[in-house]
């Protein structure tokens, strides 16, 4: 009898365990099904565009739609590359992006540094004014920027493209938050050794705020790389356009040649996706940390 009881207990135990495992499997299957469904929704359009660009002659509007290409031919890429002078547009984009990113990093690190770590008269006033500009955004900023750039005779120049976005209040806040985490002893020790304020900033403090700098770097690379409207407004010469602006131009010229436009779009999108995939760890952590503050 004892043996029988033990046996039945074992049996219920094992069936409970099986039930738990089955439940777990179902749960994970559901979770992964949902994850894949959303992934398809978010990246499916890009894959479809890639297919369109790789299958010249295939109708964009063919049904059923092709998420994966049935054959691969780079003719669209070769043709649009010859037609559009892509190296030039890529160079333009790289120039604008580099200027904008460097300016943003240097200026936001410089402006935020005293706001976080110095004691001086007017600090709270400066800070309050900066906050106010974020609460009352100007809906007409672009018009006044246009007038200012004309007045400075910077129309049709890259400086004119970059200057209005050379530093953003958001980046200043972000860096201030990062600087606040630095103990004041660091600056004191530098002073004790007789270093100038500039050297303390450059050699002692900046190496400690690299995560903050990385976030600004990535945010601004994306912002400048993808910016198209302001460059169109400032630059009279389409030869100076960055990629995104040139793409709107291509679309206007060849709205019927889907393969070319798809190929051009893929060319413009790939660099930024590659940059993102390689830096996403810093980016996601940094962005998350920046907002926490």
């Amino acid at each position, binding site marked *: 009898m004892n043996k029988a009881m033990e046996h039945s207990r074992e049996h219920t135990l094992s069936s409970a365990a099986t039930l738990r495992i089955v439940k777990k499997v179902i749960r994970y299957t559901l979770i992964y099904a949902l994850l894949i469904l959303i992934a398809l929704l978010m990246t499916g359009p*890009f894959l479809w565009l890639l297919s369109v660009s790789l299958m010249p002659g295939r109708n964009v509007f063919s049904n059923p739609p092709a998420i994966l290409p049935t054959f691969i031919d780079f003719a669209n890429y070769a043709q649009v590359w010859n037609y559009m002078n892509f190296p030039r547009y890529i160079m333009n984009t790289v120039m604008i992006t580099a200027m904008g990113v460097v300016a943003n990093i240097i200026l936001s690190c410089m402006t935020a540094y005293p706001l976080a770590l110095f004691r001086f008269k007017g600090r709270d006033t400066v800070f309050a004014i900066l906050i106010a500009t974020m609460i009352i955004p100007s*809906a007409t900023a672009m018009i006044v920027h246009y*007038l200012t750039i004309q007045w400075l005779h910077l129309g049709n120049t890259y400086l004119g493209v970059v200057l209005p976005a050379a530093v953003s209040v958001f980046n200043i806040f972000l860096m201030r938050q990062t600087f606040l985490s630095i103990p004041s002893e660091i600056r004191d020790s530098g002073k004790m050794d007789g270093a100038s304020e500039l050297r303390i900033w450059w050699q002692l403090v900046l190496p400690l705020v690299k995560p903050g700098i990385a976030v600004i770097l990535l945010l601004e690379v994306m912002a400048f790389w993808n910016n198209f409207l302001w460059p169109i407004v400032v630059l009279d010469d389409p030869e100076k356009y960055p990629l995104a602006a040139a793409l709107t131009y291509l679309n206007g010229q060849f709205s019927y040649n889907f393969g070319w436009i798809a190929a051009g779009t893929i060319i413009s999108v790939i660099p930024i996706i590659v940059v993102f995939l390689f830096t996403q760890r810093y980016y*996601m952590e940094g962005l998350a940390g920046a907002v926490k503050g």
Partner: protein
Amino acid sequence: MTRWMRTETFAAWAFMAPGLLIVAVFVLWPILYGIPLSLTDYSVIGETHYVGFENYVTAMHDRSFLTSLWNSLVYVLIVPCIQIISILMAILVNTRLPLIKAFRAAYYVPVVTSMVAVALMWSWLFSSNGVVNYILMQLGVIQEQVGWLSTSSTALYALMFITLWKGLGYYMVLYLAGLQSIPSELYEAAMIDGANRGQMIWRITIPLLRPHILFCTLISLMGAIRVFDEMFVLTKGGPGNATLTSSLYIYQKGLEQFNFGYASALGLIVSVIIGALSIVVFRLNRKGGVQTYS
């Protein structure tokens, strides 16, 4: 070097000077200069006159402007949708399952690509014989093809969908950060007390996410009212004025028709509306639609 130049105050202002100069010229000046500009008839041609509040009176009778304001307000409907969907997505990816980082990255891809590329893509997907119609007809949701972007009644909603689709990954990451800052002991305690999953989300997750919800609501609200790129690339405000939003209308008045004075007046009206809505969001958040026991 004088004694004053060695003080901290001097050093502080020296560090801030270049950045503050740019902020003054390109952030502060547009806000301030817009006010006097809105009281003139400044444009590229002809002399400039002071016209008092004429621009504002004109705006109140400008049907296109009123339509654009209405469309911008309709666009705000995406703000709650963004919060709900991106919070659910953040909860879904807040695990340590294999490949989860790849999924997070995949959801973020639309965020990093330019609106020009995204808009071109969706203009094909949304066309009458495009993929969206094909899928919806296969699923039996619709009976015949719909020109989503060329029909007045659907164009604005189609654009809202594109904005939503492109932004979800960004807000998901912000909410994910919020979720990961919630101590797991709270959930363990709730589990011991016999709380179910829904209760835990409603009683623990949402209240503790409130600072993040406030932040994300504010930035998505400002983004929604100032939405521009989508309609600029895809519809230019059409068909009719169906997708004309206030930012697009201000751009057309200012930088296409060079009617700077009038555009400034419109801009100020929109800024006041954004400010008012931001205050409403702050208030709602403080009173709390959600109960907390802190």
